[in-house]
């Protein structure tokens, strides 16, 4: 969580300094939920994150270096500067590289799980994360129904951060809570306070285990508030100040810190050293990547197919 927050803050700084092409999308306020998804997964599982899942990615095993290389457009990163920012992953290692139509990632996870079942692999699960906005898309409906029909070990996590870009939940859906939809799909549903790390760990741990144990798809709906804009270009002036002042508006990092102090699992000195460790790690990665330089268009092969001989390429420059 802490490392993700510090990494995100660095990206925001680089963005303001004009060092990043395109947008920057932060997970501020969503780290507790995100980290809980990541730590609930094991090596060999599948993770399709949403755009605010730096914490979950790190917990799942993505390196700071991969994140920095993608944001800064290094050809050495997993996307080789062909794609950027949050559109990164290593599908063969179970970390999917999202397309922008986020709901479309869920059925990809389904297909990976179906393939594993074909091949007799039954002890892995797949987690897909979306926001409440994506639940309004047809792709999400199709995919959750598909997962339920096939009884796949899918954990679908909905981070209801109250705003899809600027659109509030009353213009997004009309049911009381999105978790009500679970019954309609024939899947198990759970709600959680997304600002509460302990609660998130418990609920995600349980949902992931249920999926792993063969109880079919699991829907987890977390309520929280995005404590930043949609992207760093957005001042989030549309967020209702009453929400900011409500319990939902509390910073999950502060909540987690209190929980750790209460249980005496950590003290102030620990926080300080974790923080400086994280800062050093991020700074080291950024300075390394900044020396790597950008991609060379003349070295790009401009082939969209893996079968090189089938590329049309006619009239291409």
């Amino acid at each position: 969580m802490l490392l993700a927050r510090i990494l995100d803050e660095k990206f925001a700084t680089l963005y303001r300094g004009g060092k990043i092409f395109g947008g920057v999308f932060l997970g501020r306020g969503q780290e507790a939920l995100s980290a809980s998804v990541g730590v609930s997964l094991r090596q060999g599982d599948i993770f399709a994150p949403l755009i605010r899942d730096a914490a979950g990615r790190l917990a799942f095993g993505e390196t700071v270096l991969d994140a920095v290389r993608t944001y800064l457009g290094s050809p050495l990163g997993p996307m080789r500067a062909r794609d950027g920012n949050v559109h990164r992953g290593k599908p063969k290692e179970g970390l999917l590289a999202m397309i922008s139509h986020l709901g479309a990632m869920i059925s990809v996870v389904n297909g990976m799980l179906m393939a594993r079942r074909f091949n007799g692999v039954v002890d892995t699960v797949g987690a897909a994360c979306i926001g409440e906005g994506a639940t309004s898309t047809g792709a999400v409906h199709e995919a959750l129904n598909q997962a339920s029909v096939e009884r796949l070990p899918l954990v679908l996590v909905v981070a209801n951060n109250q705003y899809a870009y600027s659109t509030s939940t009353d213009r997004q859906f009309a049911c009381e809570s999105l978790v009500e939809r679970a019954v309609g799909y024939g899947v198990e549903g759970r709600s959680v306070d997304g600002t509460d790390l302990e609660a998130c760990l418990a609920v995600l741990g349980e949902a992931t285990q249920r999926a792993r144990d063969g109880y079919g798809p699991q829907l987890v709906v977390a309520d929280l508030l995005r404590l930043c804009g949609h992207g760093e270009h957005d001042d989030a002036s549309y967020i209702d100040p009453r929400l900011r002042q409500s319990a939902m508006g509390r910073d999950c990092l502060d909540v987690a810190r209190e929980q750790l102090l209460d249980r005496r699992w950590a003290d102030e000195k620990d926080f300080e050293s974790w923080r400086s460790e994280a800062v050093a790690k991020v700074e080291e990665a950024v300075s390394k990547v900044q020396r790597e330089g950008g991609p060379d268009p003349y070295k790009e092969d401009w082939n969209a197919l893996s079968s090189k001989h089938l590329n049309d390429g006619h009239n291409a420059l």
Partner: protein
Amino acid sequence: MSITYLEAIREAQARALADDPRVFIYGQDVGDFGGAFKATKNLAQGFPGRVLDAPISEDAIIGAAVGAAIEGMRPIIEMQFADFSTVGFNQIVNQAATLFWRTRVPCPITIRLPSGGTTGGGPFHSQCLEAIYAHYPGLVVMTPATVEDAYSMLLEAVAIDDPVIFCEHKYLYYHLKAEKLPTEALPTGKARIARHGRDMTIVAYSAMVHEALAVAEELATEAIEVEVVDLRTIKPLDTDTVMASVARTGRLLCVGESWPWGGVTSEVIARVATEGFGLLDAPPQRLNAKDTPVPYHPSLWAAHRPTARSIAAAARNLIRL
């Protein structure tokens, strides 16, 4: 013994399932029922657990195919009608077609699109969508015109490490027969000279190849020798074979069953006009369906798309230019 175009498609899938444990079939009604057109007849029984009925969810069907491909499988997807693939369009063009370029992970999926008009099909069961898929980078688009190609190209589609849009023509399903299945085939991406002639080149693909061949037969009685080029795959497009034919004949007519704006015929003409202008003795011509939805009534439908009659008229006009 004779085998139809549809049976060739079924046989190719049976062989792919038998030869490669990574292959499975997923689509609506493809299981015990054997598919809306019976292209998967008896396959669920012959290959238990590997021919799966899907919910009516084209988006999720293609998405799942991409996921399975990431895990090393080689799914064959049946879209019940090409027209319905638009519901899965996003997954095809944004997910499947970008995967390799973005992540270096190949996406070997085959998407079968039962395409083209049949009598009474109407606006939503008759479309030819090859051009819209060819527009996107990252896809191979096949349009087999013969029983032999339906068989060998479908096997090739499954073997290719990239997403293949396999446009099989419904009109040819039962009409077209061959004596036996082929044992060898032209490489993917190579066009075929379906008939030799010295006076003009008609470039066609899919069902229009047979209309063009009928025209060539007819014009031969008027001492006009038509060369017919069957493109076989429209992406990649075999520009060399088209150009070589135009070099021999000096005249070009392109025929496509899909709509006129953009598309295969305009692409062929653009390539010949820009790179082979000096080969042309007359302005290149093209013939497509009318720019309306595909009509329901047989008499409207017959007038909507190119037929041997309208192609012959265009060819006679071209020979006089």
